[in-house]
């Protein structure tokens, strides 16, 4: 037997050096290290990991269920991982931030667009994405992970199947050399270390990145993003499915394609607007965005303007609304009924 099956917990660090956030990360890491049923690893902010970063290679090597704690909306975490080939079914997390809580009930029902193309080759394992902003109390995270440990430890079928089957090379490797996963005191695991967090930073420089992440549970492959983006970020795979092909061709700070996406399927995890950063709700479910009212124009105009700024910065000509603008010009907000109550009702909305 490979011994007791452990749950892998990965902590994705915050980009900044905010001491409060660092402290929560460290506190959790310490607690997990002491837990015999948990293997913990720390990686720099998931979103920033380049394809050859050891942290990413480590994540790709994890078999079985995994919990990922990050300072990102769970949707963002899920699809960043998906893009890098770390796939699995989304595990149910009970610890969600206040902001997302509202939508919890509708999540299951509404997350998936029936026309969405979905992701491919999803192995039978669970990935639990937890937003570290969901609480400031470390204990709440520990309780939640404990709960997940209990849930996952009852499933042993998976383990048996690979023992009887043909284990992959890296599986065998880990089986023979368990320290490798733990990453303790092993310098060639790079920044995957459970030891000191300072070590993590020294090992491999991670620069901040900026690129779109597609939520395939929403994406319908309509291709409006590829038509709109003039920087060659998008491409299609062998099956003609849209994908973010050239991540680093994306223009830092520009979220324009996410605004033109009719399904709200494009996530920029570091964008300040929750709806764009991957909050679960339709409009982040939490706050009303009044930008349109205060002169922002509609989303498509805004996107065209943002794109123009980047084009000009690149020494190209602004194209305004002339290129790649979605044909849909839907301003259809559906039926109108007791709308006058709406503003008065805002007070009662427990947003």
């Amino acid at each position, binding site marked *: 037997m490979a011994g007791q099956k452990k749950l892998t917990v990965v902590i994705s660090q915050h980009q900044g050096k905010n001491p409060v956030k660092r402290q929560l990360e460290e506190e959790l890491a310490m607690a997990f290290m002491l837990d015999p049923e948990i293997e913990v690893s720390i990686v720099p902010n998931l979103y920033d990991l380049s394809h050859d970063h050891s942290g990413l290679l480590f994540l790709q090597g994890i078999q079985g269920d995994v919990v990922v704690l990050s300072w990102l909306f769970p949707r963002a975490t899920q699809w960043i991982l998906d893009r890098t080939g770390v796939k699995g079914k989304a595990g149910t997390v009970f610890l969600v931030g206040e902001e997302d809580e509202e939508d919890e009930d509708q999540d299951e029902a509404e997350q998936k667009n029936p026309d969405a193309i979905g992701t491919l080759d999803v192995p039978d394992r669970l990935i639990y994405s937890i937003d570290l902003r969901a609480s400031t109390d470390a204990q709440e995270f520990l309780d939640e992970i404990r709960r997940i440990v209990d849930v996952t430890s009852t499933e042993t079928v998976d383990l048996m199947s690979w023992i009887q089957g043909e284990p992959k090379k890296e599986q065998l490797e880990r089986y023979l050399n368990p320290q490798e996963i733990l990453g303790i005191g092993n310098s060639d695991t790079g920044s995957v270390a459970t030891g000191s967090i300072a070590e993590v930073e020294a090992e491999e420089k991670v620069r901040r990145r900026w690129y779109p992440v597609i939520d395939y549970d929403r994406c319908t492959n309509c291709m409006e993003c590829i038509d709109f983006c003039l920087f060659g970020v998008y491409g299609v795979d062998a099956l003609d499915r849209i994908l973010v092909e050239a991540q680093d061709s994306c223009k830092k700070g520009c979220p324009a394609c996410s605004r033109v996406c009719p399904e709200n399927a494009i996530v920029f995890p570091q964008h300040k607007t929750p709806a764009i950063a991957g909050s679960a709700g339709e409009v982040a479910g939490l*706050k009303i965005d009044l930008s349109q*009212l205060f*002169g*922002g124009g509609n989303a498509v105009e805004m996107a065209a303007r943002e794109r123009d700024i980047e084009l000009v910065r690149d020494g190209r000509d602004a194209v305004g609304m002339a290129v790649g603008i979605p044909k849909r010009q839907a301003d259809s907000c559906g039926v109108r009924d007791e709308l006058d109550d709406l*503003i008065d009702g805002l007070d009662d909305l427990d947003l």
Partner: protein
Amino acid sequence: MAEDLVFMMGKYEARVPTDCLYSKSHLWLRQDGLRYHVGFTAYSVRLLQDVYFLDWSVDSGVQVFEKQEIGEVESSKALSTLYAPFDGRIAEFNELLLDDPSGINTDGYGNGWLFTFETDAEPLTPEQYLEVLEGGWEKTQNMLKGQVN
């Protein structure tokens, strides 16, 4: 001083003082020498409700163009990017609000001013602004409804 104009937002009376000029983006501009003091109209404040965060992304003294992003506002119910109301120059921001933006709620047409602004543009008259409000009310409600649902 003439009596304020009033726009009914449902049951709420949004005041439109006649000693101000306005922008379509729901800001008031009150002339003060060569500059205008600029702030949120009662209509905007009503939609925002309790403002608790205000941040400017441009420095004072800079030239801005109409609809340029200049900052962010966040309230108990809403958030928004803020945009320059016209081409012009932002002379100075109201420093007091940066520490405590509650002035926007308590004295929106007075101490709750956001910044001073120099522009050659011709802002809307109170009557014109009222027309904007009347014309846009349905759309605004639809937009809100679209987001709330």
